[in-house]
């Protein structure tokens, strides 16, 4: 009997380090074991437990698209013991990864629809996975609109990709910074994400909105979408409660009877309505 130890991480080599914003880095990770790499599969929306040996584990989404094979990427902010341990690693060093965990964005069901991505700050990574997934299968979807905002120009992550997306003729890309966060060269919008969404959002007809961001942004974006005619089953988000195990055992991420790590992290607004808002 060779039962797998769920808590034993895959060993990953950090292939590439990208500095995204102050304190924010993206790592491209490659499996050290060929067979593990071969067998590994995930879908947009899933997350994992990333470990810095000597510090512990931290939970982030997989920020790369499942359409890009051979590696995974994660983006994180240096904000605690584990993340600063991870941040101190260099290209070529080893870290751990467990996953993929959680449910997925129902991208199959979204075929033939318009997609509206709305993200704020460090919440672009879970969205980036879906965005690239959609762009790599561009023919499956109709209009794609991305609204992304951060506090300041400095805080925007994936800067080169933001440019790539806005240069593409098949994407409508809107970037914004909070009032006061702009600099002299800033050519994007100035204003909070919900306000900008109201201005630039496509018709709700046949459109799916995917919202990721800090709770306050989500709180103010939902009513805007509602006003624009989006139904609850057209709106998706991804939640992040504190987690340790990632597999529905440690008891932290319960929201009502659901586990964010098993039943989420992806929820439609329709599903969100059924769980107590105070617990996420």
């Amino acid at each position, binding site marked *: 009997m060779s*039962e*797998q*130890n*769920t*808590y*034993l*991480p895959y*060993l990953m080599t950090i292939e590439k380090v990208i500095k995204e914003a102050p304190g924010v880095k993206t790592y491209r990770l490659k499996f050290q074991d060929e067979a593990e790499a071969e067998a590994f599969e995930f879908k947009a929306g899933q997350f994992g437990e990333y*470990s810095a*040996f*000597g*510090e*512990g*584990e931290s939970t982030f989404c997989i920020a790369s698209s499942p359409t890009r094979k051979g590696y995974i990427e994660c983006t994180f902010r240096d*904000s*605690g013991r584990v*993340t600063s341990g991870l941040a101190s690693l260099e290209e*070529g*060093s*080893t870290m*751990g990864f467990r996953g993929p965990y959680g449910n997925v964005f129902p991208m199959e069901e979204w075929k033939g629809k318009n997609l509206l991505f709305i993200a704020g700050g460090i919440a672009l990574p879970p969205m980036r996975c879906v965005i690239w997934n959609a762009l790599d299968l561009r023919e499956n979807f109709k209009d794609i609109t991305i609204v992304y905002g951060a506090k300041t120009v400095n805080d925007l992550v994936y800067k080169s990709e933001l440019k790539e997306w806005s240069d593409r003729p098949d994407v409508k890309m809107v970037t914004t910074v909070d009032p006061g966060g702009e600099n002299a060269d800033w050519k994007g919008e100035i204003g909070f994400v919900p306000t900008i969404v109201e201005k630039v959002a496509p018709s709700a007809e046949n459109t799916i909105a995917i919202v990721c961001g*800090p*709770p306050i942004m989500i709180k103010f974006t939902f009513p805007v979408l509602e006003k624009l005619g989006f139904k609850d089953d057209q709106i998706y988000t991804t939640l*992040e*409660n*504190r987690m*340790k*195990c990632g*597999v*529905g*055992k*440690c*008891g*932290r*991420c*319960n*929201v*009502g*009877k659901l586990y964010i790590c*098993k039943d989420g992290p992806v929820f439609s607004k329709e599903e969100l309505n059924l769980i*107590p808002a*105070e*617990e*996420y």
Partner: protein
Amino acid sequence: METKYIGKDGIEKWFNAIVASGKRVFAPVNARGQVDFKPVKKLSEVAGDYIQTTQSIKASVYPKAEVLFSYEKVNGKVNLTDFDPESVPETVLWKVHPCDAAGFKPLSAIFNWDTADKLHNAHLIKTSVISFSCAAADESCFCTSVNGSPGNTSGSDIQLTMLPDGGAIAEILSPKGEALVALLPSVFEADKGEKKEKYLVDLPARFNLEEVNAKLNKAFDSTVWKEQSERCLGCGACAFVCPTCACFDIQEDAHGSKGRRIRCWDACGFAMFTLHTSGHNPREHQSQRWRQRILHKFSYMPERLSVVGCTGCGRCSRACPVDMNILEHITSIAKQ
């Protein structure tokens, strides 16, 4: 399932045979003014007169702190050493109460409901449970209200029901139980036809589980949580003595280039349990944490795992420094 009789002397001989087989034996021992499970070698060490051990037996299949794996960093590479199921010794639990044995089911349900938990299962496989049915109970006991009974055999490999002559009715309930009998089969005699029920404590049910469940399904926003939890101090005593509480933390024990990842007990009553790095805490108030504890056991687990997360052992009520009496609280919810 087979029922036998074992005499007074037979019990001691059999116990000695179990110890002699090299298995680790845990039994309730009265020491330091408390009765708790400890490794024992002689039957005389086993505590006699008590209602309940302070702690449950859960640590035998879910240790307080356990190494998930260890690692070593060598020249920029990392070598992992997996948990070795063979490192777990064969263990016999002697004189477990039915409410403790019954706790193995909800524990395993949590650890195995989706992903199998290698560590928990390794312990489980190596553990044999000899339970003793209960002839006495106190005001904190309520197993009969949560699908249990003083003679419940769930989770037991053998159950003994003590008889006035010092012997016992032995119910052999599983292959593991048979293996234990096989250590000294000669002391097991034919069943004398005694009815076990006659020797069990009479413990009327205090609430109806379905009723409680129905109430709890609508109670999330109730004021009852705040009312009940006002005196709660937010410590983890209730969770740590509970036979079914399984919430855990994963921590790192690093020493230079070597280290180990450790799983240790945690409790949903702690304020820091759900605190996000951002400072946001979804369960900020003690009332929310108390609600989580009750709903998890009496609503979420029955719905998600088809098992109630409480065996009615009453330990949490006994351990609580401020008398958060779970029976009283559940009964009052049932009556609402």
